[in-house]
């Protein structure tokens, strides 16, 4: 009996050993065919829903802003300032492990906007939009020679970044941010009256439309597509509904400018950061009104006679989603990939840069949010999708944050890329199942 038992256990061990050999053999073969992504064991400290994983594909770039990914998985990065005469980086993963192996650059100008669309790369400085033809490998054919599509856009320091997106008909939609907080005669000065009307809106504080096939366009050739938008750093064309969506940075300093009407706690939370769907000719109401997410109403701005309660702006559009104040929605992306579960299809990802105007209250944001969509409308509450970028629980000042989400892009396999202009990292979020 005993020897039979021994024999049995010996054969079990042998079988197990053979099985292990077979499995590892298979694994190695698979590895050679299709290298696995080097997903971080701790997700690089980023909290994502169960089944998702995170890679940090590169680190310590100089202020990467928006990003675009081509059909081959190469990443184009717009830098806030050109470094060594390179304002655009092209990052390649040569061995398929997800991590960047090769970095090259071109484009001697800083900026924020960058989009890969079909056979072209588009990028913006704070005054112009350029177009670069791509070759069959998704690589810019001639980095030194770009078509200047748009020029002479207003850039007066505040809110100067020209984020943009494109529709399916070859139109470009560009943010021309208001060079002002609330259209006061002296910007941000206590007691300085507001302009009536706000003349900034003639050439800024809105979204302008241009063509992607005409060179050297400026205001005369463009169309003010929507107005009353203070600064929309996030824009995306929703291809399923064929509509423009934008994320606005709401006004600052309610309490500093009007301490009798707003205490610091209220001012930290107001006004809402807003997601709008935009139709041609829309007015979102800045600077005359702001949106209060708690009262769910458009409130007359105190510079224009408001008291924190009076509603106004009947003709102004309402947001489709209102978020807590000052979290700085810097990028918007409608997810069209197939990698993520059904819930995420056609929904909106929003990269929040993180607040500063909540001081002395603690800062908020520093995360990527998700809004589920059905038939072109939000189908549920917004939620935090990826969090922990700041690297610590309580952030008093934004300079303490390790990473600040700034740009979003979708890879050809459906991965979601997140750029960070504080730590200079680019994260790739994948669904593992």
């Amino acid at each position, binding site marked *: 009996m005993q020897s039979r038992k021994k024999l049995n256990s010996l054969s079990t061990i042998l079988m197990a050993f053979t099985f292990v050999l077979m499995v590892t053999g298979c694994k190695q073969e698979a590895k050679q065919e299709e290298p696995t992504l080097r997903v971080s064991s701790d997700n690089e400290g980023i909290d994502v829903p169960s089944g998702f994983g995170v890679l940090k594909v590169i680190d310590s770039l100089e202020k990467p802003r928006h990003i675009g990914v081509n059909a081959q998985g190469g990443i184009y990065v717009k830098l806030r300032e050109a470094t060594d005469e390179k304002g655009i980086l092209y990052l390649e993963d040569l061995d398929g492990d997800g991590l960047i192996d090769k970095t090259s650059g071109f484009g001697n100008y800083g900026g924020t906007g960058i989009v890969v669309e079909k056979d072209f790369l588009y990028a913006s400085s704070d005054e112009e939009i350029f177009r670069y033809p791509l070759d069959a490998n998704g690589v810019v054919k001639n980095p030194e020679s770009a078509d200047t599509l748009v020029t002479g856009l207003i850039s007066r320091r505040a809110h100067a970044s020209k984020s943009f997106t494109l529709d399916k008909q070859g139109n470009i939609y560009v943010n021309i941010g208001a060079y002002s907080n609330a259209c006061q005669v002296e910007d941000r000065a206590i007691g300085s009256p507001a302009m009536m009307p706000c003349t900034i809106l003639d050439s800024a504080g809105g979204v302008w439309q241009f063509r992607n096939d005409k060179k050297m366009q400026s205001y005369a050739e463009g169309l003010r597509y929507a107005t009353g938008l203070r600064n929309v750093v996030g824009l995306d064309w929703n291809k399923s509904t064929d509509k423009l969506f934008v994320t606005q940075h709401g006004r600052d300093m309610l309490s500093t400018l009007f301490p009798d009407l707003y205490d610091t706690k209220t001012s930290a939370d107001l006004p809402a950061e807003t997601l709008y769907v935009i139709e041609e000719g829309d007015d979102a109401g800045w600077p005359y009104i702001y949106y209060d997410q708690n009262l769910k109403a458009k409130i007359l701005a105190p510079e224009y006679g408001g008291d924190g309660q009076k509603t106004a702006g009947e003709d102004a559009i309402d947001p489709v989603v209102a978020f807590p104040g000052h979290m700085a929605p810097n990028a918007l992306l409608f997810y069209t990939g197939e990698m993520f579960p059904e819930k995420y299809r056609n929904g909106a990802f929003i990269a929040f840069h993180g607040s500063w105007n909540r001081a002395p209250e603690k800062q908020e944001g520093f995360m990527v949010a998700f809004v589920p969509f059905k038939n072109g409308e939000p189908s549920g509450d917004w939620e935090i999708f990826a969090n922990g970028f700041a690297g610590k629980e309580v952030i008093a000042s934004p*300079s303490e944050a390790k990473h600040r989400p700034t740009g979003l892009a979708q890879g050809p396999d459906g991965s979601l890329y997140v750029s960070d202009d*504080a730590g200079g990292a680019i994260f790739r979020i994948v669904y593992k199942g």
Partner: protein
Amino acid sequence: MSIIKNSLLVVLLCGSLFNCKPSDKKKALQEPANEALIQEEKPIKKELTASMSEGKKVYDQYCLICHQPDGSGVPGLNPPLIGTEYVLGDKGRLVGIILNGSNEGLEIGGGDYTNAMPGFKSLTDKEIALVASFIRNSFGNSAVTIDTKEVKDFRASFSL
């Protein structure tokens, strides 16, 4: 403050070692000159602490929202107040920025900052002196304070 404290100690030590016999020690310490020195230290300390907390009040109300509780500012938007010549250096330039604001894109610590800083002409000379002295001696900074008279003179010279 530490200089005053140290010299006071030296005076006391010298006094007890050289000037007085052991039996005279008590008497010597009670001498008016010495008492005056001892009492003088506390009010100076109190006055400085008080003006720092007065300066902090002004900072919290008008400056903190942009320059942040730790003076670190906001990357790309509002410059830090830590270790920069604009805060620690020329008094007139600092008072000028507080009074008149700044929207010309000063390069501070290799960074560019795009938000406009409004002027604070409505603050009193005393409030500006307090807040300027506060930021020159907070967040790890250390520089001589600015008094109300100096602010008054700078303000007059700017409005010429």
